[in-house]
Structures are given as structure tokens and as C-alpha cells.
């Protein structure tokens, strides 16, 4: 069981790595910002599976912090990359 969970964690990590390769190549800024979101979701899944596989409950706390911080980082990047003079920005 633990081996299967660890294998699942490795699989998800591999998916994240492949996704990162594509995302970090761009070509647009929006692509690169998605890296934080991808790492957030995939990293959390990996951490939760590791926590279940190795019995390290603290990894769940790390996943909790990672959820908040990946959201925060993605929002910060999108805020920093957005054009402040975009006339359409007000139309929500």
C-alpha cells in the first residue's frame, strides 16, 4: 500500500515536471505564471500522497501552507504582470 501511494506520488510529480517543461518555455507571460499554480496543485497532491505513504502527518501541514502560498504567489504574479493601464480592466 505504501509503495503504491509512493508510486502515485512519483507519477504526479512526473506530470508536474513535464508540465513545467512546457510552461516555463512560454512563449507568453501568462504561461509562465501558470507554473506557480501547477506546482501548487501538483505539489500538494504529491505531499498528501507522501504523507499517507510514509506516515508523516506534518506533510499535510506543509501541503496546507503550500495551498495558501501557491494561491498567493500566482495572484502576485498575475497582479505584477498585468498592464496597469488596461482600459478594459474595470469590466470584471
Amino acid at each position: 500500500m505504501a509503495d503504491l501511494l509512493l508510486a502515485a506520488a512519483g507519477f504526479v510529480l512526473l506530470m508536474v515536471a513535464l508540465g513545467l517543461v512546457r510552461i516555463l518555455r512560454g512563449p507568453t507571460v501568462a504561461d509562465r505564471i501558470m507554473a506557480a499554480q501547477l506546482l501548487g496543485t501538483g505539489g500538494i497532491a504529491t505531499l498528501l500522497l507522501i504523507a499517507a505513504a510514509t506516515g508523516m502527518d506534518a506533510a499535510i501541514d506543509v501541503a496546507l501552507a503550500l495551498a495558501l502560498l501557491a494561491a498567493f504567489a500566482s495572484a502576485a504574479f498575475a497582479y505584477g504582470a498585468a498592464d496597469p493601464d488596461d482600459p478594459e480592466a474595470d469590466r470584471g
Partner: protein
Amino acid sequence: MSLDVFSLLAIAAGAFFFLAGTVGLLRFPDALTRLHALTKADNLGLGLVVLGLLPRVDWPLGALKLIVIWLVVLLAGATVGQLIARVARQARPSP
């Protein structure tokens, strides 16, 4: 025993959706469709993994943490998706 089978099935389904999300990231033609693959498929994959792990963590604190994680990721996916889409619409390809 059957709980173990349930966990494995849910986690396998979650892993499949992560695979689908990555395939979407690799194959979709532009930033907005890639964003769609990322926020929808990967979030669903995480939800299924959380569902599969719920029987295995101690109740109630562990299960509460898992559900809070999933809800935060849902919220983040929804809002950050909007924010990134705005950046994509302004469409400045990087040098």
C-alpha cells in the same frame, strides 16, 4: 480492505486526471486553453486524491485539513484563473 480499494481507485482516477491535465498543457494551442487544462483537470485530480486519502487520515483534524486544502485550491483555481486569463488577453509575448 474495501476502504483500501476505494482509496486506490480514487487516487488512480486522480492520477489519471493529472495525466490529462499535463497532456492538455503539452498539446493545447494557446495560453487560454492551457490555462483551462491546468485549472480544471488538475483541480479535479487533486479532489479525487483528497477523496481517496480521506479514509486514511485521522479523524477529525486530518480530514478537516484535507478538505480545507481542497477548498483553498478550488478558490485559488477559480480566481487565479481569471487573473491569468486577463494577463493572457493582454497578450504580450515575452522577448
